[in-house]
Structures are given as structure tokens and as C-alpha cells.
């Protein structure tokens, strides 16, 4: 009793694969080859994709804080809230009481500020979601950048145009090193550190070398591993 297959008629030997089967084999084999050749490229592209770096993705926050309103419209200085930025590693996030210096007077009943009022009343801190996140083995210092001609906008983008804050730059090691190898083009004078819309005028190369000299920047130690990894 032989088993009867779907295509068999009587006892004739069945055609197991159709004539199209060869094409599938070719497709799979060549496809795999192409994939292997392309995979480094895919890896490189994916690794730098916004999906992976997390760029331009505005995170939900406990209160929908808008830099566009506070910086762009009201015109607050960065340092009003981020007080540590000129002196310490961490720029610092404002304490609840800093928010409430203004919001006890204006928009004091706004429903969107309820979490802030609740924090002040209960003494429980607001927990914001970190937008610009670096791995734990990276030790970034705001003060040394801000005091040496790197403006806020250079890394954080035009926050005055962000209703909810997103990450503007890739924050990959490649991106950090780009500037550490050649900081000149990203430097600005002290007066423009906190400016959102400063643009260099005149010969950019000349300005870059002038600023490098002005801030005494020596790039040799800036690419030493321990500049960021300790």
C-alpha cells in the first residue's frame, strides 16, 4: 500500500517540485548573498537611524513643558532654570520651587500645571523623562563646554522652537568625536553662548581659528579616551 500523494495519478512517481521551484532556490541563494554583502551597510545605516539614536522624538513629560513658549516667546535665559551649566558637570533641572516662582503668580490655576502644584504641596519631586541620554560610562561635563565656546544650540538645537523637547543631535560617539577632533567650526564667542539664533559673520575659517586661540583649545588631549570614559 503506497501512500498516495496529491499530484499522483495511480502509481506513477510524483513530480515533487514544480518547475518554479528552481527560481525560489535561486532567489533565496542570491538573496542571501546580497543580504550578506549589504548587511554592513544596513548595520551602519540602522545604527545611525533616528530610530536607534532617538532623535526628533518628543517624549511625554509629567507636565507638557514647552521650551518654545518659555524661551521662544517669553525669552527666559537658559541659566534661569539650568543653573549649574556654567560651573558644574550637570546643567541641572529646576527644582519645583523654581517653576513656582512664576507660576504662583501666572497660570496659577492652569490644569496642565496641576502636577507641579502637587509636587510643591506634597514635597514629592516631579519625575521628568530624560531627553538627552548618555550611557553610564560616558562622563559629560557641561561647564567645560560652555566655558570654551560651545553654545547650547550646538548640541541641543533650537529649543526655542520645540513645543515638547526632543533630542536634536545623534549623541553617538562618532558625533562627539567629530567636534573633539575639530572643534573650530562649532565654536562661538562668549557673548553668543546662550543665544538661540547666533550666526557667524564673515570668514568662518578665520573665525574658527581665532576662537580656537581665544579659548586656548588644544585638541590633542580632547581625543584621549579618558576625556569621556573613566
Amino acid at each position, binding site marked *: 500500500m503506497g501512500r498516495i500523494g496529491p499530484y499522483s495519478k495511480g502509481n506513477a512517481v510524483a513530480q515533487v517540485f514544480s518547475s518554479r521551484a528552481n527560481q525560489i532556490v535561486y532567489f533565496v541563494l542570491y538573496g542571501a548573498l546580497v543580504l550578506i554583502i549589504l548587511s554592513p551597510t544596513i548595520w551602519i545605516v540602522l545604527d545611525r537611524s533616528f530610530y536607534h539614536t532617538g532623535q526628533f522624538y518628543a517624549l511625554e513629560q509629567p507636565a507638557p513643558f514647552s521650551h518654545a513658549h518659555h524661551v521662544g516667546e517669553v525669552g527666559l535665559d537658559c541659566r534661569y532654570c539650568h543653573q549649574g551649566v556654567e560651573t558644574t558637570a550637570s546643567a541641572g*533641572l529646576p527644582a519645583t520651587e523654581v517653576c513656582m516662582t512664576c507660576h504662583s503668580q501666572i497660570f496659577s490655576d492652569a490644569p496642565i500645571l496641576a502636577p507641579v502644584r502637587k509636587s*510643591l504641596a506634597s514635597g514629592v*519631586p516631579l519625575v521628568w523623562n530624560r531627553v538627552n541620554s548618555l550611557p553610564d560610562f560616558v562622563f559629560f*561635563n557641561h561647564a567645560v563646554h560652555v566655558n570654551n565656546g560651545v553654545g547650547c544650540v550646538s548640541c541641543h538645537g533650537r529649543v526655542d522652537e520645540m513645543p515638547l523637547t526632543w533630542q536634536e543631535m545623534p549623541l553617538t560617539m562618532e558625533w562627539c568625536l567629530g567636534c573633539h577632533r575639530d572643534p573650530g567650526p562649532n565654536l562661538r564667542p562668549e557673548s553668543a553662548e546662550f543665544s538661540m539664533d547666533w550666526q557667524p559673520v564673515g570668514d568662518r575659517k578665520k573665525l574658527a581659528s581665532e576662537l580656537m586661540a581665544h579659548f586656548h583649545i588644544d585638541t590633542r*588631549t580632547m581625543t584621549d579616551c579618558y576625556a569621556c570614559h573613566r
Partner: protein
Amino acid sequence: MPVTDKDMREELAAAEPARFWRSLEERARTPAFRRMLDAEFPEIAERYATATDRRTALKLLGASLLMAGMGTAKAAEGIAPYVEQPENLVPGEPQFYASTLNERGYGMGVIVEAHEGRPTKIEGNPNHPASLGGTDPIMQAAAFSLYEPTRSRTVLKGNEVATWGAFQAEVAELRERALLQGGAGIGVVIGPNTSLTLQRLFSQLQQAMPALRFYLSDPLAGTPRPYAVLPHFDEAKIVVSLGADFLGEGPGRLAAARGFADSRRVRAGGQRTMSRLYCLESIASLTGAKADSHLLVRPSAMDETVARLATAMQSGTGDDAFTTALVRDARAAGNGLLFIAGERESAFVHATAQRLNQPSAGITHTLIAPVATAPADSGSLYDLVTDIGVGAITSLFVLDCDLMHSAPADLDVGAALEHVSSLYHHGLHVDETARKADWHVPATHDLESWGDLRAFDGTASIVQPLIAPLYQGRTIAELAAALTGDFVSSSLDLTRATWAQLDDAGWREALKRGVIADTAAPAITAPPLAEIANPVQEAAQIDVVLTPDPFLDGGTHAANLFLTELPRPLTKLVWGNAAELAPATAQTLGVATGDLIEIGIDKQVLALPAFISPGQAPDTVVVPLGFGRWTGEDSDTVGTNAFPLRRRGNAWLLAGARVKKGQGSGRIITTQEHHAMEGRDIVRDVPLAAIADEGPSAQEPPSLYPPYEMPEEAWGMSIDLTACIGCNACVAACQAENNSPVVGPDEMAVGHDMHWLRVDRYYAGDPEAPETVFQPVPCMQCEDAPCEVVCPVNATVHTHDGLNAQVYNRCVGTRYCSQNCPYKVRRFNFFQYQDFDEGSPLSLLMNPNVSVRERGVMEKCTYCVQRISAARIQSEISDQPIADGAVQTACQQACPTRAITFGNIKDKQSAVAREKTEPHSYALLEELGTRPRTTYLARVTNRPDEDKGNG
């Protein structure tokens, strides 16, 4: 690696050993030692012997590939800013506060570093006389004991959780009843404590309840005497230690170490003389290791030897080389003579030292009245048990001492405590004593308490908290206040009341400086000499002598794993104690390292493993105290408790002890052979007279590498082997600063210690009476580093300022670098050593400026690159160069004798550059051409036989 006696003696006879050796096994070159040397990480092969077969390997490979793809995007990290920003606190910036740590009741001044309110690192306070900026390992480990997970957390009534309020109500009721009878029936047991606040409260208590009795539990107490000696090493030309370990023990040891080292800091262009230290000792000690001439005397012969020495001092002739030289030098030194008697030596030795010291009183030393550590008429533990026995004590407060652990064997404290109708215990742990108690109140750690303490010279300082109590802890002062009827004052109120003479400005100044001005004890004139007859001690065949463990003290720090795992200075033992004995004694007893020794007194028999330790006195077995203490349900007891060997009047040298070889063997874990750099010219010494006037002509060995450019600072280090006393403070400081893990006994046993810095201890000469040399070995930061060229992933690279940087996030763990390192200074994370349980308080201990390394990553000394970075960032911001001394490595800062100098060697005026031009400066294994940035100053010796004309 046990060495058999036969092996060793045969090999010793056959081989011509190197001058310096670290262990008898190394000296004898046993096959086991050779094997250890040949394997990079010895015993790792045995450890991973179970070979994985091909199928399993493929399965694992597939599974890991699959799981690698299953990762999900991480949720955003939360940031919680303050609600109200505390003044003076800037997130990310460390804060520094002066405080005081309690060591055996005395104050050690410290500066504590805190990050966002959590204390992480202890430094010495330069203003404090007991620290002078230096620290010891116990101080360095204080932050660990704060976060130590087995600490007691709640008030307990019986085994039930209770509250401080309930305890206060209980005390109030007790007080009401007791006041009617003047406090009769109440006893208070305290450990030694110099706090003036406590003394004030205790005397108030005594006034209110005259019948209340105090008992002092001081298991490590030495010989009582009516004065304390403050040595001045700068004036002493000849120092004679009569069994005194003034460098390794006692509340003034850091100051003594500083003074002693400074009197011996010989430099070509500076000081050209050094003091000479004669040491008479029966227990190998740090002081004995630094001695220029030392004599090993068994403890039972100490009195007799000191008596003979005293006679020789009078007659001017000695009967052995040691005494002859000593007498000759003493005559020449005139008033520059200083005798120091050991804490636990007999009254006769103290009286003799005092008599010999008298001509130089006020010059080489001053006397002060001893700093009070307990109420004047405190009873002993024997009195306590008697009083309980006759029913005189019905309510007992045991404040911060573990009686069950430290009681001698002829005192049944357990039964006595059962007799007390209400027992109140206060301590950091729910230990054996706490388990017997009706009430237990958790103690606060020093870093959580307000209080005050006095230093060895009487100087008072404030204990200032860095953090609010983590648990329901209370200070002894708060308990004492409750007994006096004060239920509201905090320990801050109580401390300020004691120092009411300080106004607000004075109080702030005292807090800021870390000492209260003008509180040092005044000098007293020498008390009349007591004539004490030389007691004749009966010599047993073998003397058994107890000694406090240098790190655990009498068990106070038993739960501190930093200290448990820190190699003991001389034996390099970790995770346990052993019966230490000299090679000849071991031969007499027929034991080898690891064999059990049975020590019997009456019916009590204690078995512990033997450890052959050159430098112990002949026919003597030394047993360290402080081990075997149980500190709560989640803790493991480590080592053997030797307190039960004690009898009344028989606290240190155990008369009537029987010693014999036992059955079987015990576990010995020692790091003395780990990381051996065998058979080379590693430690060097040079006689004082042979030091040239000029530095070495810098002859760099030839190299195929291009010459090293120094565009920026060139960091370098110099370690002075003359100043190093081998105390291991640097090792503890390195561990605390750099988030180094505790790996546990099993890992230590196979040589996986994670201390970036090790202090190698070398012996030279006769194994029965060797010379001892210490050599701290951090990473040499080679300019032409052998580790860098073999790394396949560029995880170890050179920086522009000459550091040999290790990039953890790049390291894939091939361990080639470690294989290629001639100095054996690289450490590998074989396991995830720092995988804290959820909510473990130990995660609060971490220094936020140093990465916590994970499994499979190589790590090593970085010259504290986080401190260099902080200084460089400041210099970039301020546009000022980094000043000499602005960067201090953790080991350098901790060193009590300032043996380590660090700085920019490119700046020829810097302290480190000057040290490197000294004639006795040398680089380790410099013939390899690695051009190490860390160099050494050879140990300068001042042996009596080196004197010109006396040879």
C-alpha cells in the same frame, strides 16, 4: 598552596634564594610555587575544567544570538530634581564636611566626601592631631560599614518590630521605679568612649541615681597606667620599642607614623640623618618591620629581656649584638632617646621604659594624663556577672558592645544575661547579645550621628553627620539622655549643650576645622616611679599569645567586608584568622601551613589552621582576635573566635595553654604569592652612608619605539620605600575611591583579588628573624607599555599626558594585556562582582565619577583619572595651569607617612620630579625598557652594623 615541611627544607637547603622573598614557598621554589608562577591566573584551568561539548556550545551560541535580538528599547530614564533646592548643594558637585570617626573610643578626624547627600569617601583631616591628613584602612572602610546590608534597622521588642517611642515609654517607666531606689538594680555596660557629652550625661545619671552601676567592656584594654606618652620623633635619635607597635596600633598611630617617617626622610639635597629604631618584639608587627635592628623575644621572656636591657643600659655592656649596639647608641644619643612600651606589656615593662625615658622627658616625649574612656568607678565584666549573680542588677543596658562574642571562657555571660529581668541592647547589628535582649535599639553609624570624641592627645572634635539615619538608629547619648529623663533632646542638642561655651561662630568654626581649639590635654610631670619587681614568668613549652586583628579590632568591624578582604599587612591573610607561628616553631610542632593546630586551656579546645609566618618570636603561637563574630541573620561568620581562650587575668599571654597538631586541615587564604614578579631585582635598599650626593645620571634603556613626546602634563609617581610602613591604607583608599568590588573568599583563594594597588611584603635573610620590606605596586603607567601593543580592540591606549588608559566599554576580555604586563597590576572581572540585590544600600557607596565595571572587563589603576579630569576641567575653565599638588591620587592622600608623591614630571620644580632625581630613585624592572612613570625610592637602611668604624 600548602607547602610540606619536607619539601621546603630540602629545597631551602638546595637552592640559593634571592635576597628578598615573599613567602617560604617562593624562597624554596617549590614545584607548587613554580606552577603558580607559570600560570597567569593560577587554578583557573581547574576551575573551568568541565569542558563544554560542541553541541552545547552551538546551542548556547544560538540562544545568545536569539536573545540578543529580543532586547527592547529602554524606557526613558527619569530625572527627579529637588522640590526645594537645598542651599550649598549643587547636583553633581561633591561636598566635603569635617567629622570624626570613633576607633576604640578615640576620635580620628576626617573629611568626608558626599555626593547628593550620600557619603562615599573618607579622607584624613589635616587639622586633626590624630590624622594629620592621613588615614588608616579602618577609616577608609567607614563608608562601607554605613551601607553594610546586615545592619540592624528597627527597634525590636523581643523579636517583634517596635518603635523608639515605645522604647522611650519603657525607659520612662523603668526610670520612675528606679528613682525611688536611687537607681539600684540598673546596670549600664559601655565600651570605651572618650565623648565628653557621654561623660556629662553619665555623671548626670550618677547624680540622679547614685546606686546605678557602670561596667566597662573593653576586651582590647592594655595595661592601665596613670599617664600617656606622646612621642616626639623629630627629637628622638634612637627609638626603642619594647613590644610596642606604635606604627600599627593605638589611637595616635597615624601621628606617630608621620613623625617617625619624617625623621627618616633622607634626601640628597636635604636631610642627611635618620633616626634608628631598635625593636624588641614577640608578635611580628609593622613597627618591627621598620626596625633597623630587632630582637624576637617570646612573650613569656619579655620581662626578663627588658630587665637585662635595663641592666645593660646602666653597666654599658650588653651580652648580645642587639643590646651592645643599643647601649652604644644610647650613650651617644644623650637626651635623644625614646623608649616606648607596648600597650599590653606588663607593668614592669612600662615602669622600666618610664625610668629609662626620664632623662629625655620633655624632649623626645611629653606625658599627659590619660584621656578618660569610661566613668571613673566602672566595674569589669567579672563584677557584672557577680552582681547579676547576687541579684544586684535586674535591668541591664548593653550599649554598643557584643558581650557574647568577647567574653572570656570562665565567665558565663550568656547565663548571666538570662538572669537579668530586662535586658536592653544598643548596637549596629542584631548580634548574639542582641538576641538575648528584651529590647534592641539600632545604633547610628558615626556618619549619621552628632557627637564628640577626643583624640589620643585629648583634642576634642565634633562628630558631624553627613546623612540622616538610614534606619531607626539612635546614638548612645540619646539613650543615656532618656535614662536621665530627657526624651526630647536630639543628639545635636545634647552635643551643643556639652559645648555651651562655644557661641554660634565658635561652633561653626569647630565644625569647619574639625577640631575644637585649645582642647588638647596639658602636659603633666612624670608621676613618681613605681618600683615594680621583675615578675618571673613561667615559660610553657610554647607560648600562646592573642593580638587584636589590625583591621577588625576586637570584632567591631567584623561585618565590614572591605576590611575582611583587605590583606593583613604581614601575613597577607584574608577572610579568616590563623595560628601564626615561625618556621622553627612549626617544625617543633610538626605542622605545615593549613594544618589544624589545637590550642587547649582547661577543657576548652580551639582548632584553627596554622600559618607559617616568618618574623614571629620563637616558640610562640599568635592568634588574632576579632574573627568569628556573628552579626545578624544575613551575615556569615568569618574565621575563628579566640576570645573563649581567655581566662581571668589571662587576657593576652595565655598561661597554661597546650598546643599540639590537630587532625585535618583548615582553609588559609593569603594573597602573598599572588601577582609575583619572581626572581628579579624588585625591592632595593641602600645603607644611609652609601647615598650619593647627586641623582642618577638618567640613562634610559635603548628602545625601538620613538621617543615619548610630552605635549601636556606628564603624570608620574614616586613611592618612598623608606617611608612606607605597609599599613595598607592606600589599598583601602584605592578600593573606596575606584568602586572596586569585594569578591569573596573563593575568588580570593584563586587569586582573583580586585585591589588595583597591592602592597607586596618581602622578607630578607634568616626565615627565623627576617628583615621585612613593603612595596606598594600600582600600575606603573609605562611609557612604552607592553599591555597596549597586544590589545586587539584598542581598549588600552596611551593618552597625551602619559596615562595608560583602560577603556572598559571597549574591552572584550581577551586578557592578553594582563599576560603581557610584567608588573602584574591588571585585574579581571571574572564574575559580575557588583550585582547588587534590588534596593541594596551598597549601591549608595559608589563613586559617581568612576564607572562600575561589569563581568568580562579588564581594569587597573588609572592614577585616579577622575581626579585628573576634574583638575583639567577646572584648568580649562579658568585658563590656569594645573598647580603642583592640585591632583592627589587616592592612595597618596590616604598615606599617613606621605610615602607617595604624584604630579607633573615635566615640571622640574614639582615635588615628584624632585623625588625622581634622588640618587636612590629606581624604576621597577627598568631593564625591560617599559619606562615606567611610577618609580621608587630605595629603602634607606640605618642598621647598627653599617656605622663607620663599628662594622
